[in-house]
């Protein structure tokens, strides 16, 4: 457990020191929700529950995308610099290394997602005059569903980045991120009651997120030291 916190703590500190990634993440976290806020406000026609659903629908893909941005620094950069080889020679298991890194980058990604949600709520409140921060399901969504999906994305993308070469990673990174967003939008569309926050929607999203984390753990378990070393550029 100690090595897990050492690895995760280091990834968080490095994420906070990477100015270029922080700027990219901040721009996306603010620009995307502000632009979407007008659409949500126009479509909701004053209904607080629909607005809360719109905010939830925006925040989840933003969080997943934040996970993707921070993963590049924790997994891909370590591989490109070759420092991953030294880490693989420490007495830390590969699974523990993956877990520490995935959670370490999930934390700043979650913080960015919360900033994004705050900006979205502020923008919609400013446009519609309706306050939605007291919607319990929206709070549940932000407190539980968003972090589960961010962990699923950092875990899966991280495992893929460890296992694949640089060129394959460029392609697969985009495929994974669009895959995630497609799944999120698809789930929100197919659940009874349509898009929005409801117990059913949140339950399905929670179950799908946990299933994706389990899948990411399974994939990470298949990655070997040899595979990582042979794909170092």
């Amino acid at each position, binding site marked *: 457990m100690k090595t897990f916190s050492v690895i995760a703590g280091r990834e968080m500190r490095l994420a906070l020191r990477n100015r270029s990634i922080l700027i990219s993440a901040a721009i996306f976290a603010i620009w995307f929700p502000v632009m979407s806020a007008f659409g949500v406000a126009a479509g909701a026609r004053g209904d607080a529950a629909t607005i809360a659903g719109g905010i939830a629908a925006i925040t989840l893909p933003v969080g997943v995308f934040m996970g993707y941005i921070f993963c590049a620094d924790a997994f891909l950069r370590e591989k490109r*610099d070759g420092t991953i080889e030294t880490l693989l*020679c420490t*007495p830390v298991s590969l699974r523990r290394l993956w877990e520490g890194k995935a959670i370490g980058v999930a934390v700043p990604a979650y913080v960015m997602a919360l900033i994004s949600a705050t900006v979205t709520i502020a923008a919609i409140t400013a446009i519609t005059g309706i306050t939605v921060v007291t919607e319990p399901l929206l709070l549940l969504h932000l407190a539980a569903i968003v972090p589960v999906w961010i962990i699923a994305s950092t875990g899966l993308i991280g495992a893929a980045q460890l296992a694949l070469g640089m060129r394959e990673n460029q392609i697969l990174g985009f495929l994974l991120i669009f895959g995630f967003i497609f799944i999120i939008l698809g789930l929100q569309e197919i659940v009874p009651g349509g898009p929005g926050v409801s117990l059913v929607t949140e339950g399905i999203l929670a179950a799908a997120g946990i299933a994706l984390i389990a899948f990411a753990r399974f994939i990470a378990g298949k990655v070997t030291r040899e595979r990582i070393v042979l794909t170092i550029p």
Partner: protein
Amino acid sequence: MNAVEVRGLSRSFDGRNILNDVSFTVGHGEVFGYLGPNGAGKTTTIRILLGLLTPGAGEVRVLGRDLAADDDARAKVGVLFENNGLSDRMSATANLTYYAGLYGVDEPAERIDDLLTLVGLADRRDDLIGTYSTGMKRRLGIARAILHRPEIVFLDEPSSGLDPGAQRMVRDLIVELSRREEMTVFLNSHHLDEVQRICSSVAILAGGRIRAFDSVANLTGARDRPAVTVTLADPGDRAGASRVIEALPFVAGCDPDGEGIHCTLSDPGATPDLIAALVDAGLRIEEVRRSSRSLEEIYIEHVGSAGGGV
């Protein structure tokens, strides 16, 4: 039990044999030099020993353990690859503290202080590694590699890319470490001069095979077949002197070479008898100098001047 045991190791990539039936051992406390041209398979061997790659055939053990299967065993092993394993965006202290956490080092602050002083970076401890020179990074990399007091440390081309001053500093540091920390050093290098100065034994790898494996003293002939170069006061006496030398029973070879006569002796203690025989023959001696073959000569003999990459 040896610190490193390699038996019948083979490995190929994409149908190309990189290592072919490689065997050698490294004793505890030795400074071992693993030599070979670029592409000979040195780094592949180290990666297999460290459990980063699997052997195609054969068996490897480090401190009697298989590092690929045994996470805990890696706590007794230090490693320095070309990139030093350091994050440019962290300070020296932060980098070492991170690795101290991974290895579970007791009283890390004290150990880090000690090592930063040893490698001469105590006054730059809080600077980002990105501001360090290549030589400073390498010294810090060595400190990182031995932070957890390993029993054996693998150094992959530690002098690569360094200027002569920094190379010497790193070389002195390796000798100091071996002496002070009493650890086995596995040095992967193609700096022959460096290896000859600091290593007790070497293996030469070329074309995926071990071409020579012995102590440096044995390989260069300094122990079993010492050589001397005799310079005569009158170079015109060389032919006569050569006949006298060749007739001596303890002389294995005689080669008039430039101004002197190069003699290989079968008896390490026969130099005074050689001098006496020449004086008895009425020859005037200017100088008698012990000479041995350099590791470079041995290397070229086994590898060839064109190199022996796979």
